[in-house]
């Protein structure tokens, strides 16, 4: 199918049109913090300021906190009630790195047991990608096989070609959506050439690089090098920023609450940076900071690819950008020594 285009001035109309069938989420800024928020119906200012959200769009699928079910006791014992229907979501403007991240963590939620909460949202969502034209200083997606303005992990991909956005269907759902959508114009050859140019330029603008070559083996080789990890971890303050806001960090916690005979079981994001994450009553296998930092790095770049092939990092740069002490994973990965002959 030939690609389409839409004038930026008509984006509000487009999102309103989609709002009839979907819960539309688009970049929005509240108190200076960019998030994917419910589309308000008017403000397309994000087309100018939007670089990426602070909270990764994984929050639309794995919320920071969600009710798994409620329970109540009566004369016959406990009754469990599931939360009401979720919505069909349309995420507008997701970046290729974040879309890739969702595809990566799908593996975890599909593996062996299906996770109904995450997967029902994933199965009911449409992703509209928007290519980056000015990747951030902290971005390093190209080192992980991602291009800032190209994606196979969305349903529909948009590219900024000046006054207009070029729209290319990526998946069957994307094609279906285009067919259903009114107000799109056919793109010209010229537009397509322009988009190609934009994508290439964006790609070349990503200057931060990591050396991920043989990283699994390199990490395993230095896994027991306590001195290396202590040095890496020295300035880390064990906060949860880099994990909770990471688009590929999916670890979670489950907790109950009981207020006035009404019980709720919650699931919320958790972080391997916190000592309580692995704490058992009698002992804690990762009580020391360097072990937790090692776990974070090794999970993303070692254990996850060992299990699911992909490195669980997409180079979105959030952790680098948001870290209060500028702990930079790109420096850490680059400093993991090349595999020497030493086997642990």
């Amino acid at each position, binding site marked *: 199918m030939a690609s389409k285009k839409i004038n930026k001035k008509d984006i509000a109309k487009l999102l309103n049109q989609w709002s009839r069938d979907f819960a539309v989420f688009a970049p929005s800024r509240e108190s200076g*913090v960019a998030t994917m928020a419910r589309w308000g119906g008017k403000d397309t200012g994000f087309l100018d300021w939007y670089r990426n959200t602070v909270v990764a769009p994984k929050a639309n699928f794995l919320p920071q906190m969600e009710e798994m079910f409620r329970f109540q006791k009566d004369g016959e014992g406990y009754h469990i009630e599931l939360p009401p229907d979720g919505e069909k979501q349309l995420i507008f403007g997701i970046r290729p790195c974040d879309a890739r991240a969702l595809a990566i963590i799908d593996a975890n939620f599909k593996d062996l047991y299906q996770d109904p909460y995450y997967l029902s949202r994933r199965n009911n969502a449409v992703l509209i990608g928007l290519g980056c034209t000015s990747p951030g200083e902290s971005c390093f997606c190209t080192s992980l096989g991602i291009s800032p303005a190209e994606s196979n992990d969305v349903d529909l991909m948009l590219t900024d070609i000046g006054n207009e956005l070029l729209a290319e269907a990526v998946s069957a759902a994307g094609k279906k959506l285009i067919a259903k959508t009114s107000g799109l114009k056919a793109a010209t050859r010229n537009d397509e050439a322009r988009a190609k140019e934009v994508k290439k330029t964006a790609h070349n603008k990503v200057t931060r690089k990591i050396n991920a070559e043989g990283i699994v083996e390199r990490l395993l080789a230095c896994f027991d090098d306590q001195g290396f990890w202590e040095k890496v971890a020295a300035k880390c303050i064990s*906060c949860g920023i880099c994990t909770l806001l990471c688009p590929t960090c999916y670890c979670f916690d489950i907790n109950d609450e009981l207020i006035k005979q009404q019980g709720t079981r919650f699931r919320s994001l958790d972080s391997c940076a916190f000592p309580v994450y692995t704490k058992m009553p009698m002992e804690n296998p990762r009580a020391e900071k360097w072990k937790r930092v090692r776990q974070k790095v090794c999970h993303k770049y070692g254990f996850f690819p060992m299990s699911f092939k992909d490195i669980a990092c997409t180079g979105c740069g959030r952790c680098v950008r948001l870290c*209060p002490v500028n702990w930079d994973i790109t420096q850490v990965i680059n400093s993991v020594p090349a595999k020497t002959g030493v086997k642990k």
Partner: protein
Amino acid sequence: MEQKLRNEARALLEQGKVDWIIGFEPGSLKFTTTPLITKDKNDTERLVINPFITNNLANFLTGIKGRVGIVTKGCESRSIVSLIQDNKVARGDVVILGVPCPGIIDLSKVEKLAGKHRDELDDITREKDRVIIKVDGKTKEFPATQAIFDHCLACELPTPKEYDILLGEPTPPIASPAAQENIKKLKQMAPEERWAFWEKELARCTRCYACRNVCPACFCQRCFVEETEPQWVLPAPRWQDNLIFQIIRNIHVAGRCTDCGECERACPVKIPLRSLTREMYDIVGELFQFKSGMDKDALPLLTHYAEQEAEDLFR
């Protein structure tokens, strides 16, 4: 100043006067620095002092064994003194390398002044009371007071009072009223509006605990939010629990908080935490004439008392 610091730090390590040096080195992004914690004398060559040395390094003191030489701005010196009051740090174990600090540049403010994202700026420099921003080949100048953090505007002790070596000339406080603008605005609201404000702000909280973990005054081995018997707050980011966490955190650090502003700066979702901490700082000052971290011989606020105080709050 930078070179003097490097020499002093190297000498301290070489002479065995300290085991560790804690300072700043250039960060991995433009206009950033990052804490340097090292035992290696050669690393001292990387030490820097510039208008971007944001972190409160006193935070690292409680997690380190041995004697430490530490680069110390005014706010850090107060945090260190507060830790000494609480017997968390022994004065003899730290060599304070005092740095007079005319204020740290707040990149969010600079972005607003320049109308550009920080990634797009070419250079930011500080010249006395001016901040110079270079962008798109053009140069813009602003008074420094417009470009530094609020807590720096409010700073009462830009030059450490407690130090072993002072690098550079003392600098006077700015004491700009702009520093408390947000609190003033809040106080003009009706109580319900204020509560609604905090409810909305804390709804954004992700419970990453960066505010707690960057705070030198938050030195508990185990935080109350991690208690399970009883579980005081749900360990999940619901606004009610987030707000209780912040309220209790502020009560816990009352008399220890030096208004260094790190919690607000560290917050990834920009919750105006300093509007909480600063108010507590002022409450403590008003009720008990207590200023944290000014005098290492003063007794900690919450473990001591005067016979006559705060009686008007009791029936």
